[in-house]
């Protein structure tokens, strides 16, 4: 038996992208020296029974079965960290929360009655207590390393909650809104991705979710001045973090 902390990785409704970031974290072989990987189905067929010191959860809750499963996982985990837009805000699949899941079922499946699903896709924190939520679609390996390192050391992760504009300006990236009139969610989106989109001359699409105290109304007004029509504005606010509160509420004002 090992005295390393036991790490488990769990998947709910998701694309696997955030788990893949776990796999790339400081490379798997090094990670395996620091923790005992006890449940990580994407990587290993060896499964160690709980309880677990740290559980990392990817994905959102979309079925009754999964709503139950997350409670069991919570009960067997000392710390529970959710990773990614799916787990922290319901993900792109939370678009159903604004529509009619029955319609969704009919569009995709020949026999909708065979499909078991909830009407909503929800963040893990709506079901159980979560010790830390890491944002991004996907999360970055760098931030994931920080969070894991912090939990292993028993300290708070140092992840800034300010907007993506802060590092964008600091890096001297040309502002796509000022220079090209491109709508950009940067001012209301949490930093952390490395402000990639403006560097590639496109507007931020908000995959890290709302920053702390985002001025969504000002952003919406600015976008409209740039000529963004209301349906487009709603779509802009409703993508991978559509059901994050600040984005959701602002989007409703423009429906």
């Amino acid at each position, binding site marked *: 038996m090992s005295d390393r902390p036991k790490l488990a990785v769990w*998947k*709910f*409704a*998701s*694309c*696997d*992208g*955030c*788990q*893949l*970031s776990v*796999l790339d974290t400081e*490379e*798997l*072989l090094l990670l395996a020296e620091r923790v005992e*990987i006890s449940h990580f*189905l*994407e*990587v*290993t*067929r*060896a*499964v160690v029974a709980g309880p677990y010191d740290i559980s990392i959860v990817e994905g959102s809750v*979309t*079925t009754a079965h*999964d709503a139950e499963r997350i409670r069991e996982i919570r009960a067997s985990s000392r710390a529970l960290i959710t990773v990614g837009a799916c787990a922290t805000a319901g*993900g*792109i*699949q939370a*678009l*159903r929360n604004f*529509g009619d*899941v029955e*319609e*969704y*079922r009919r*569009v*995709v*499946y*020949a*026999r909708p009655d*065979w*499909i*078991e*699903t909830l009407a909503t896709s929800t963040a893990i924190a709506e079901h159980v207590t979560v010790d830390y939520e890491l944002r991004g*679609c*996907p999360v*970055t390996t760098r931030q994931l390393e920080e969070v894991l390192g912090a939990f292993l050391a028993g300290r708070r992760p140092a992840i800034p909650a300010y907007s993506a504009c802060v590092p964008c300006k600091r890096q001297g990236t040309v502002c796509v809104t000022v220079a090209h009139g491109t709508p950009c969610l940067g001012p209301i989106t949490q930093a952390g*991705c*490395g402000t*990639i*989109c403006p*560097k*590639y*001359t*496109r507007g931020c*699409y908000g*995959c890290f979710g709302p920053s702390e105290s985002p001025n969504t109304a000002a952003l919406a007004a600015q976008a409209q001045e740039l000529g963004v029509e209301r349906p487009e504005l709603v*779509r802009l606010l409703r*993508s991978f973090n559509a059901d994050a509160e600040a984005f959701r509420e602002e989007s409703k004002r423009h429906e």
Partner: protein
Amino acid sequence: MSEPEPEVKTIHVEALARVEGEGALRVRLRGDKVEDVQLEIYEPPRFFEALLAGRSWLEAPDITARICGICPVAYQMSAVHALEQVAGVEVDGQLGALRRLLYCGEWIESHALHVFMLHAPDFFGCADAIELAKTQRVWVEKGLRIRRAGNAILALLGGRAIHPINVRVGGFYRTPTRAELEPLVPQLTGARDEALESLEWLSGLDFPEVEGDWELVALVHPDEYPMIRGRLGSTHGLDLHVDDFEEHLIEAHVEHSTALHATLAGRGPYLTGPLARFALNHERLGPLAADAARRAGLRGPTRNPFRSILVRMVEVVQALDDALGVIAGYVQPPRPHLDPAPRAGIGRAATEAPRGTLLHRYELDAAGTILTARIMPPTSQNQPSIEADLVRVVEAFAGELDDAALTWRCEQAVRNHDPCISCATHFLKLELERLP
């Protein structure tokens, strides 16, 4: 549930490891004969086709990328090509070459992940790559470096390795300068050497003897090993324009999770993926990959699914070589993208995801709003053939292997096809089917 009769044996792997996404498999055996086999998928549906309706066509590449974090570029590429078909534009020249470069990055990272981290451990009786590294560390490390080389292409050209942000209808948001691409060259060259060595290492593995009789389906193109262009061809004479795919590749939603049957109209199950690409296109491999394939014992098409690990590695060599070729011939195009105007219509495209052919169809209105979307991922197409493989594998080895070993062999038979269950799941029935 009733008690099974004494001679009936059930193999049940609750949670299938080392596949993308989550699934389970169930095999029921009477003596040496398989009575029933089920590859169960318990991924919850995410309804991508439904949530795309009402979105702008320009959003489709970013949204469909989220179907799969392992092969987002495949989704982006099938999406943009289908959408550009509606608009009546063709992205070629240097922009087309850059798209191929990006796709090469994905083939490299995805295949390296599967070969070294997910598939190779089976051949050594290891639970995972971490255990494998105890005896084969240099090879696992080579695999990680090869994977990093693929990710480096994605990060540079796409902005990040997972869900790249730089793919746009009409081209890219920003194209790299030559000087920006150059630093990839030493890394890719090193990875290509290591891929060649790795292929030699892998060719020495012990491959269980079993052959599939599947109809193999892949894109076929007269000038290149297929990735983005071509017609749909098969080992049994299929030759289709991609526009006609819906009449020939039929999906049925039937009750129980194994039963999303993609079949060829009037012909039955088929298999896409590396084995199919290689069977139909090995003559169009570049000289380096072709020679490496020969040295690895792949003198022609192989029907042994366990040997798919070799074919994947050949494709890694090909993709690395291709990527270096694109960089060598690169001249930054004058504009990063064409400006196609939306128009009403339907567009279809197929590209070769690492796991197999990925088909998209979109119907747009004149403003470019998506009215309907249809996505056929490789795993949902392959599922009936994977199940057929399980029957063959169980019947071939039930006599000589004990239960634990047979169970493992079954898992391996599924992993042979690198199924991406996250992708396939939005088509599948999700309740666990219990044996009667």
